[in-house]
């Protein structure tokens, strides 16, 4: 009893010292709570459906950020990973009768393979060349999909897959928990040594290579990691919608991912996730004016970029938090002195 009390008190101290001190961490904590406990408040299937799709696309947007935001390898063909994941898990499920718990990871592995295959030619290119070349791969695959309709279903796609689970609420929990878990893993990766090297590759690849680091290997690693997470998103999408169609490979899909990530703020992981959670439901609720939906989406993005070109969430974060000039630790904007080194903030 006393030990339990001790650990609880310690947990509370850590919580107070690490989470409550910064508004951004409080927001993340509240976000976790909100998405985990939402089904207790409402079980409206339509709302749950929107949130499931939002979570799937949040994984996708975050995985784009992991590759393109962190290592700076602009990938315009992210739909390739999504589509490969979706089609592989759909075909495995339909023909080999593998349940979703097996077909989604296998789909993700196929996406890793795709990442390696496109990574090897692409790593010789840089910057805009790379961006424009990666755009080509999903289109090539889409041509193949259309050319062999006997296997891929052509324009109609592969349909009639198993459900993710029995009920909508358990679907919701599977995707949301996966989303929270995978995004945390991605955030941890970017925070690790590997993540530091990714950062460095974006800033100055030559310097990283001079430091004796095999940048090609790290870039391939970024391609496969990103492909893995995007492949999981694709598999989840296929099993939730119960269809894997050519729409998963479209150019507009790749572009939408880029829009989400840049709108939310690249090189953050939380930025793209937040952006999807803002933009996707908003777009869904704008369905009352279907003809103005995409137009408003585009106009909102244009105007937000004019005022916050670094993305929405980093901009908001800079408004409520301030970096200590001496020890580089973040503080609430209302504080006069730094919470760690007591240097005056201004």
């Amino acid at each position, binding site marked *: 009893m006393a030990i339990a009390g001790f650990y609880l008190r310690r947990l509370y101290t850590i919580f107070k010292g690490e989470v409550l001190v910064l508004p951004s961490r409080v927001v993340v904590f509240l976000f976790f709570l909100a998405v985990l406990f939402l089904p207790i408040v409402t079980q409206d299937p339509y709302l749950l459906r929107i949130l499931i799709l939002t979570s799937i696309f949040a994984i996708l947007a975050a995985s784009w950020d992991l590759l393109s935001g962190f290592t700076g390898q*602009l990938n315009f063909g992210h739909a390739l990973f999504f589509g490969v994941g979706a089609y592989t898990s759909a075909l495995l499920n339909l023909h080999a009768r593998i349940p979703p718990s097996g077909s989604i990871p296998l789909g993700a592995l196929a996406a890793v393979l795709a990442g390696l295959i496109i990574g090897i*030619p692409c790593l*010789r*290119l840089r910057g*805009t*060349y790379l*961006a*424009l*070349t990666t*755009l*080509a*791969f999903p*289109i*090539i*695959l*889409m*041509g*193949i999909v*259309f*050319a062999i309709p006997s296997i891929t279903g052509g324009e109609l796609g592969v349909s009639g897959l198993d459900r993710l689970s029995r009920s909508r609420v358990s679907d919701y929990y599977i995707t949301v928990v996966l989303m929270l878990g995978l995004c945390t893993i991605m955030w941890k990766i970017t925070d690790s040594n590997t993540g530091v090297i990714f950062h460095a590759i974006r800033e*100055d690849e*030559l310097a990283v290579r001079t430091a004796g680091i095999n940048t090609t290997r790290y870039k391939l690693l970024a391609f496969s990691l990103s492909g893995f997470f995007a492949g999981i998103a694709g598999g989840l999408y296929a099993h939730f919608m119960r269809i894997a169609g050519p729409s998963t490979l479209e*150019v507009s899909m790749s*572009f939408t991912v*880029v*829009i989400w990530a*840049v*709108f939310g703020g*690249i090189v953050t992981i939380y930025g793209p996730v937040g952006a999807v959670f803002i933009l996707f439901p908003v777009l869904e609720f704008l369905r009352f004016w279907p*003809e*103005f939906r*995409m*137009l408003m*989406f*585009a*106009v909102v*993005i*244009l105007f937000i*970029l*004019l005022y916050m*070109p*670094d993305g929405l969430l980093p901009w908001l974060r800079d408004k409520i938090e301030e970096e200590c000039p001496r020890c580089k630790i973040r503080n609430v904007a209302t504080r006069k002195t730094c919470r760690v080194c007591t240097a005056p903030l201004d």
Partner: protein
Amino acid sequence: MIIDIIISGLINGSVYALLAIGFSLIFGVARIVNIAHTAFYMVASYCIYYATHQMGVHPVLAMLVAIGLVTLIGLICYKLFIDPIREHEAAVLIATIALAIAMQEIMLLIFTGDFLSVPALVTGYLKIFEVKIAYQQLLTFAVALLILAGVWALLKKTRLGLAVRSTAQDREVANLMGMNESRVAMMTMAVSVGLAAFAGAVVVPLSVVHPHMWMHPLIMMMAVVVLGGLGSLKGSFVGAYILGLAESLVVFLIPMGAFLKGSVALSIMILVLLIRPEGLFGVAFEEER
């Protein structure tokens, strides 16, 4: 058959060349990856449709008006949305994607998603080896070549062209030599959007006009630019004809070819890049560090 392939390949190739040169110009000078480039081409096609069908203007006049109008729209969009965020490359990219989507949606609202068409400027056809070649096709091809020659002259023979080329080579040094970089970028944007509008004008009598017509040329244009080498006019020119001919070969010779035309063209691009990472005629840009 062979003549059909050559004709459609040459016409596609010239349109891609017009688009790709405009795209690589603005990329070279201002480092803007303008996804909205082909959206301007679509808007120009719609302007011509509107002027000829709704207002009854003569097609040639309609084309000239459309080119002027679209160039103006392009400059306004540039000033309003792209110029203020020039230093954030990712943001510029998204801004151009959003612009393209916005234009597509506006056209969808005004003209609905119907497939529209504009009558040919000249009717009648020529017969070579039992193959019909419409005069319109020849006209399109000739005009496209003429414009390409005009662009070449503008870049190589005028002071503006000199400024554009030197800014593309090294922005900072060009600035030090007294060239107003932002004005050069502005002029290049005008030329680039004008070329896109021209491409729309030459292609509109031969194709259907619909709000999604910018997608396929966008992809092909990017492939051409990468294949030929970013910033190389000769490369864009050669690359455009290679991909245009490849596309029509696939369409005519392979069953289900219409689905595969994009794939084959893009595979050619990737194969070339495997051998020459900077494209056929690529000039390595200075490392920006």
